[in-house]
């Protein structure tokens, strides 16, 4: 175990040299006091778990979990051309959103490869919040600056002045409601509204990355700790646990949600990843200036032709756990036909689950394949995504 434990020590900033290169969120001291273990992620020092990842995961499925997501990017795009500018920069048309609503979107390179996936919120007619992954914030900010250069818009990166907390799980609404003046019952999925939370101004969004109902709260950096404390206190009687990036990863995997760097990268278009519905190719009903966007020609060609590979869900039928990078084969055949992008033991299902890219000819539900785990072939069956869908 020496190598893994040694590498783990590198993740834990035991000395100043490690910590110096990582940005800390405004909630950091709370995490330390809660006994969190930290990991470097996208240039940030983030809690990976406080106790047991499985306990944290189950809290979100059965009650609620509280996440510090202050590492995520907050890029504001505002001005008369904000809607059309973003439509030219992203694969979706954010101008279709009513004020107070959000959409999942992607930003692609001219060849159609995914630069990042992100959420776009429309908070005013000429004002949008773009939330990219922490690890891609700078490249997305640079791409947006370049792509929006000809438009009457202003781009502000407010990541380092914004705290983002998420409360996720079936009890999330009951926990948050007493802390806010917003009627959460009137806030639909993928809607967002400005309100007060724990005495501070906040943008409250009914979004998340866990497969559960829940809320994401954007507050000022300095208001983050008070909001965190209020949510922990309010959630205690509901079974809320603070949750780290470990549980966030297993929760999103069960929910079949892609993670940039695993399911998505520059060599992948949204179509292979099953994200075609977020690519607005037909813009005939949109304003003329919204019609073209970066990557359009490449994505139209990809949409018209056969896919080279397709993202599928796998459940292992023999003992073993499939991990990122493991080869996928047809039974009894030595040549790999695909690769695992994410995999873990599913705390909810009690089975080893994975997502993988395979040729479309091998992607039908029920197909039996093999995952190569340490030179051994382990049987795996293709199942529909997501692995888990909430019922309440």
């Amino acid at each position: 175990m020496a190598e893994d434990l040694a590498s783990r020590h590198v993740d834990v900033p035991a000395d100043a040299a490690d910590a110096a290169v990582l940005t800390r969120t405004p909630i950091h001291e709370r995490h330390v006091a809660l006994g969190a273990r930290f990991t470097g992620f996208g240039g940030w020092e983030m809690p990976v778990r406080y106790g047991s990842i499985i306990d944290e995961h189950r809290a979100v499925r059965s009650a609620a979990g509280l996440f510090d997501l202050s590492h995520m990017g907050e890029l504001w795009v505002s001005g008369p051309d904000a809607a059309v500018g973003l439509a030219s920069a992203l694969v979706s048309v954010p101008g279709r959103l009513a004020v107070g609503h959000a959409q999942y979107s992607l930003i692609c390179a001219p060849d159609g490869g995914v630069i990042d996936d992100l959420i776009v919120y429309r908070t005013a007619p000429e004002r949008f919040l773009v939330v990219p992954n922490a690890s891609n914030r700078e490249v997305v900010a640079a791409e947006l600056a370049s792509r929006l250069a000809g438009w009457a818009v202003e781009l502000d990166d407010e990541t380092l002045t914004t705290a983002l907390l998420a409360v996720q799980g079936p009890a999330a609404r009951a926990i948050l409601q007493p802390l806010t003046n917003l009627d959460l019952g009137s806030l639909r999925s993928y809607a967002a509204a400005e309100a007060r939370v724990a005495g501070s101004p906040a943008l409250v969004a009914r979004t998340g990355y866990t497969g559960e109902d829940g809320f994401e709260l954007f507050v000022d950096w300095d208001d983050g700790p008070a909001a965190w404390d209020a949510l922990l206190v309010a959630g205690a009687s509901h079974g809320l646990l603070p949750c780290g990036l470990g549980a966030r990863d297993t929760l999103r995997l069960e929910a079949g949600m892609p993670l940039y760097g695993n399911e998505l990268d520059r060599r992948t278009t949204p179509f292979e990843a099953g994200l075609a519905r977020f690519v607005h190719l037909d813009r005939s009903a949109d304003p003329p200036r919204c019609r073209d966007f970066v990557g359009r020609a490449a994505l139209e060609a990809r949409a018209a032709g056969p896919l080279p590979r397709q993202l599928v869900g796998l459940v292992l039928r023999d003992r073993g756990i499939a991990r990122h990078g493991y080869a996928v084969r047809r039974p009894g055949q030595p040549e790999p036909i695909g690769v695992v992008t994410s995999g873990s033991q599913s705390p909810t299902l009690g089975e080893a689950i994975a997502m993988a890219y395979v040729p479309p000819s091998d992607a039908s539900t029920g197909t039996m394949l093999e995952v190569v785990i340490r030179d051994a072939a382990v049987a795996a069956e293709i199942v529909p995504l997501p692995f888990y869908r909430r019922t309440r």
Partner: protein
Amino acid sequence: MDVPEALRYTTDHEWLRLESNEAVVGITAYATEELGDIVFVELPAVGRHLQAGEAFGVIESVKTASDLYAPLGGEVLAVNEDLATQPELVNAEPYAAGWMVRLRLDDPAMADGLMDAGVYRAQIGG
């Protein structure tokens, strides 16, 4: 951190309990704390002969897979079959129900070269 006095330890965070010319092997409480929830343990076939330092199995937490290394050379006499269905026993009782393999040692005297509890405790800073 629990580091029982009667055991021997390796730099790989494994423990070994000598029983005449046999030894029981597992991973330490420190290792389980570092790894988090154990969800999978792969152990060798009974009868296999292990060289000292040889990878003999794999332990997987929610997030990662790690090799297990033989602290000393010997033949595998038994493995903990319960871990196939209850890998969480490693977290719950690393020095008891979470044991992994029983070896017949090639040379029990080699155990003198492993760390005692005091040295191991110092290594893990506790």
